[in-house]
């Protein structure tokens, strides 16, 4: 009886959901991805092209990379597009994913107050830049949320031989956008992905101070989820999305996407 009641409620609520999106039923997939791809507007530019061609809609849940992995592990997303190559490979090794492929790159940049108290613009490598921030004990806003950007930032501190900590190092536990808002408010240095930075509308006193080191390379990968572990997922549709991203057409769509006249993502799928 209890089960029947629950089913009734669930069916009723499903009806409500359908009412909101009945026309979507031709087919959709849920894509777990990162805030950088969503906030920059990339998905608004490329998903309609894929939908026109395949008839498949893509519902994007944009979260930090750590949370995106967790959503995919639990079987709540059909596909995964994130930027933490080591984490993606681990995800496949653990048996949650069957395949990962390079899709595109952008890069991280170091942002800070225009006065540049730590002298980042004089640094030649990213290790020097991070070292200068630590030496000056200039305020640094860290994502602190186990996102792809946060993981990359922690690797760079390690490479610079700095154990970040102390009053100047502030872990915010927020997404990229909120972290930039906070950094603008407290004149702190911050590492951001270029896409979010260029699309960001509230820079106040913040400026781009360091860019171009190879270590700031930010690789995005698409991961297919293992059908055996989560048989209910829409693997056929997800595979079409995955293949399209890697196809000439998908790669071209990524290259064509610009914000404020600037290309933000550079396709680099293997031939």
């Amino acid at each position, binding site marked *: 009886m209890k089960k029947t009641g629950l089913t009734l409620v669930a069916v009723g*609520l*499903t009806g409500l959901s359908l009412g*909101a999106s009945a026309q979507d039923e031709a087919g959709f997939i849920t894509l777990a991805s990162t805030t950088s791809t969503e906030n920059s507007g990339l998905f608004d530019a490329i998903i309609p092209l894929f939908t026109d061609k395949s008839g498949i809609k893509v519902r994007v849940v944009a979260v930090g990379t750590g949370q995106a992995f967790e959503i995919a*592990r*639990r079987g709540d997303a059909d596909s995964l597009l994130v930027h933490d190559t080591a984490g993606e490979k681990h995800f496949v090794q653990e048996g949650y994913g069957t395949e990962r492929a390079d899709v595109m790159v952008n890069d991280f940049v170091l942002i800070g107050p225009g006065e540049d108290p730590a002298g980042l613009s004089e640094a030649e490598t990213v290790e020097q830049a991070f070292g200068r921030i630590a030496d000056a004990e200039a305020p640094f806003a860290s994502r602190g949320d186990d996102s792809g950007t946060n993981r990359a930032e922690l690797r760079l501190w390690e490479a610079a031989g700095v154990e970040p900590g102390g009053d100047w190092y502030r872990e915010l536990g927020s997404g*990229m956008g909120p972290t930039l808002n906070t950094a603008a408010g407290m004149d702190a240095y911050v590492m951001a992905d270029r896409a979010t930075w260029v699309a960001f*509308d509230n820079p106040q006193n913040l400026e781009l101070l360091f860019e171009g080191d190879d270590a700031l390379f930010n690789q995005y990968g698409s991961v297919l989820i293992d059908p055996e572990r989560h048989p209910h997922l829409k693997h056929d549709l997800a595979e079409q999305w995955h293949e399209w991203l890697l196809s000439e057409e998908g790669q071209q769509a990524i290259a064509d996407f610009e914000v404020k006249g600037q290309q933000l993502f550079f396709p680099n799928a293997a031939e």
Partner: protein
Amino acid sequence: MPDDANAFQTALALIMGGDPDLLGIVMLSLQVSLTAVLIAALIALPLGAALALWQFPGRGVAIVMLNAMMGLPPVVAGLAVYLLLSRAGPLGEFGLLFTPGAMVIAQVILVLPIIAALTRQQVEELHSEYREQLSSMGVSRSRRIPTLLWDARLGLTTVMLAGFGRASAEVGAVMIVGGNIDGVSRVMTTAIVLETSKGNLPLALGLGIVLLVLVALINAAAHLVGETAQRRLG
């Protein structure tokens, strides 16, 4: 503060412009929160009244628990519903996660304690006035519930509005269980969070003003209905 003036202009442009995307977001916000309040009220009104009328061991504890649940953080409710509806969770088979249905469930959990706890208080006060009369007429306790709820209806309208306020204002729960998917599960509050994270503060504040106007309209409608009903019934 140029941004503040901007926000009002943006809000006005949003309202006047009739942008279909915004309209969809507004409609979904209303649909989700009103459905949640309706479902919560269907359970919470009789529950609150029953709690007011019946004496049983542990009643004090039940009331304190119910009152405490009014302070349940939305993000915790969202997380609990997420774990419940996730494919790996007990109700995963229904595929409700990241749909408006999941958002309704989360908001019901947030709204139900508010309506139940405040109903309990209102009905208890009313009952202490009516008790002797109802007893002398030999009305059983379960028959008293509809009578008391009906007589307390004006106060209970405010109670329901408090519930609606909680539902339409919260963002922590709907963000987790809805996923803020464009065109599917994006509501006013999650859209505000998204625009804030893009640094588009005037638009975010503009959306906030639109939401406030919307909530004010709902409250005005409820007020009008109450006034008219009172006048007609003398």
